[in-house]
């Protein structure tokens, strides 16, 4: 028992995203992963069996597990990002399950923003289709480090190696347009279970790992930026108690690199230099802390620092500018207004911006750039330039997904209208 409990405490966390439509077997695949890892419970299964029967479905629709809202169940579609959880003795998994249709690009982008890995499903009978390209492009745009292309429904093509090889080649032919280093291919049948949890007996020609084995073992240790120390100050802790009379701690989450006690650091926007005095986490004093730990840092010198400032490692400084060049995905029914003013959130910093220029739009289905039509509406992806009211301290999104990202907010409705990835 002791060992079992301990074992649970040593798991890593892997967040992955899936996108797809009802037809490509995505729900069946997720259902199988959840069921085989015992993340589906009997009362949940009974409940969806009842609903399936009531709707007159021929078999149990596992999509009902993730489609939680009444409207989704009634219409048989996924409207929103659904989060599902399962664990094996090796890892805990968070699945961001998103709809695959073009009108839900914004949900795919949302699900992709926190993922380490994207699972892209291809129907073996249809090969690479528009939707495959769209999912791959979003994975690339959002800089998901690992992509697994599951060529599904192999049972319907007689487990034929040529089919698999052709699809793999087809995918690799446009891969150079993508910015993804780690792409893997697995031939599976989610329905029959081939290569999902257990190795397929029907595909001797495939020597690679099963899907679950890959999810459990793929190396994610180097996904985080461990080089450039970035600590956006979130909240200033001043206890003003007798015991901690002079304590002034800067609370935040490390968004890049590693910080050590004694490190030389620079504080933005003042650009003053100092050293790290302590790294506190509750009653513990740490010697080092790394992304993504939430800690409280105290400094050797008394510098005026507040929320929105950033403490960085002196050896690798961020860019500082008010002129920002970025890719945006637009989320709102009200289109982007050229020259319009919006609020933005970047790390812990709030500012305002003005949209200066729309450089081009990207067609998410062909990856072609459109320099003519510059109307940016819901689900559009575009490259734009903005000017901010205060300088941002940032890295390119390629270098750091947290210091390189921002959201745009409509000040009249307070809605989040776009996600931005700084170029």
């Amino acid at each position, binding site marked *: *028992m*002791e060992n*079992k*409990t301990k074992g649970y*405490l040593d*798991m*890593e*966390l892997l967040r992955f995203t899936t996108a797809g439509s009802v037809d490509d077997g995505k729900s069946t695949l997720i259902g199988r992963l959840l069921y085989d890892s*015992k993340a589906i*419970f*009997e*009362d*949940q299964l009974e409940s969806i069996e009842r609903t399936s029967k009531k709707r007159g479905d021929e078999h149990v629709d596992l999509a009902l*597990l993730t489609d*939680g*809202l*009444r*409207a989704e169940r009634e219409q048989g579609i996924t409207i*929103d990002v659904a*989060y*599902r*959880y399962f*664990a094996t003795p090796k890892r*805990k998994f*968070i699945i961001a399950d998103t709809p695959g249709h073009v009108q839900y690009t914004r949900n795919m*982008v*949302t699900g992709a*923003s*926190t993922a380490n890995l994207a699972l892209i499903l291809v129907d073996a009978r249809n090969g690479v289709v528009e939707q495959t390209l769209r999912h791959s492009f979003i994975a690339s745009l959002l800089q998901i480090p690992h992509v697994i292309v599951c060529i599904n429904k192999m049972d319907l093509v007689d487990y034929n190696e040529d089919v698999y090889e052709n699809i793999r080649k087809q995918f690799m032919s446009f891969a150079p347009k993508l910015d993804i280093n780690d792409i893997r291919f697995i031939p599976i049948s989610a329905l029959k279970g081939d290569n999902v949890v257990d190795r397929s007996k029907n595909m001797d020609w495939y020597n690679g790992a099963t899907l679950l084995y890959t999810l459990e073992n793929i190396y994610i240790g180097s996904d985080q930026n461990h080089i450039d120390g970035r600590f956006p100050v*979130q*909240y200033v*802790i*001043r*206890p003003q*108690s007798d*015991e*901690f009379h002079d304590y002034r*701690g800067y*609370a935040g*989450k490390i968004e890049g690199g*590693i910080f050590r006690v004694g490190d030389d650091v620079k504080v933005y926007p003042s650009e003053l230099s100092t050293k790290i005095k302590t790294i506190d*986490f*509750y009653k513990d004093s740490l*010697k*080092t802390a*790394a992304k*993504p*730990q*939430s800690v409280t840092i105290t400094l050797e010198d008394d510098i005026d620092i507040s929320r929105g400032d950033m403490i960085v490692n002196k050896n690798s400084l961020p860019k500082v500018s008010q002129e920002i060049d970025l890719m945006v995905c637009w*989320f709102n029914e009200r289109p982007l207004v050229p020259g319009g003013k919006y*609020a933005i959130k*970047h790390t812990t910093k709030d500012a305002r911006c003005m949209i200066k220029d729309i450089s081009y739009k990207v067609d998410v289905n062909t990856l072609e750039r459109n320099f003519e039509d510059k109307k940016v509406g819901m689900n559009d992806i575009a490259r734009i330039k903005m000017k901010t009211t205060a300088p941002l301290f940032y890295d390119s999104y390629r270098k750091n997904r*947290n210091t390189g*990202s*921002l*959201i745009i907010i409509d000040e009249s409705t*307070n*809605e*989040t209208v776009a*996600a931005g990835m700084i170029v």
Partner: protein
Amino acid sequence: MDKIIINHLRELESESIHVMREVAAQFENPVLLFSGGKDSIVMVHLARKAFYPARIPFPLMHIDTGHNFDETIEFRDRLAKETGAELIVRYVQDTIDQGKVVEETGINASRNLLQTTTLLDAIEDLKIDAALGGGRRDEEKARAKERFFSHRDEFGQWDPKNQRPELWSLYNGRKKLGEHFRVFPISNWTEMDVWQYIYMENIDIPNLYFTHKRKVFKRDGTWLALAPFMKLKDNEEVVEMDVRCRTIGDITCTGVTLSKANTLEDIIAEIAATRVTERGGRADDKRSEAAMEDRKKEGYF
């Protein structure tokens, strides 16, 4: 170089602390909703860690149905005292006395639904702009769609089809006057994560979670604890059993589990082997398939 190992619990912990600090920074008048259950106990523990050595910068608020396990109230008062946080208690009984809601009648009568009115009144009275809750996405299918920062209109309603997209760890807490947010820092935790964390951090929890002898009766396949204000059907027989609570809520709708689990290790082993969700014993969820979604839209926890 020092080897830094961050396991899944530490990563979840960090995410939750980050969310709590965002609340303290973005809102003027937040409260932490405290029910006395394990999730809210973990929330208090996380809040202490987030702001140490300062005190938790917001009060704890309990919406009291009056139908509690006695141990819950004792535990609540002790924890509030220990953390030094202010404790606000609002009573469903007061809302009933004011004539704002009518007590349910019949055999399955529960004050669970009435809590919503008491909660929304408290939010309005005290001008609360953010209420932190211990809801988790794995609990229930409507909760799987929740945001960390969940917007509520001036009537306290949730509009699940029109939620703000939430990306990276950027949380948009902007709102108009009279609107508020529900914030769920432990959204990404599962029941197992909560128990493992309680074990790892050695967090004190009420004895109700461990096996004890209790007078219980069976209704609709669920064991319920006997309490003075509960009505029995003719065919329902009260027996004494070894039970423990898997969730703690209003006593009228919280099922107990037959269990001999005596330690946290036992509980973790029991949950690893169980085939029913923790809310499987909650009569409040069984009222209809979208029971939770409907209650949440109106402003439930």
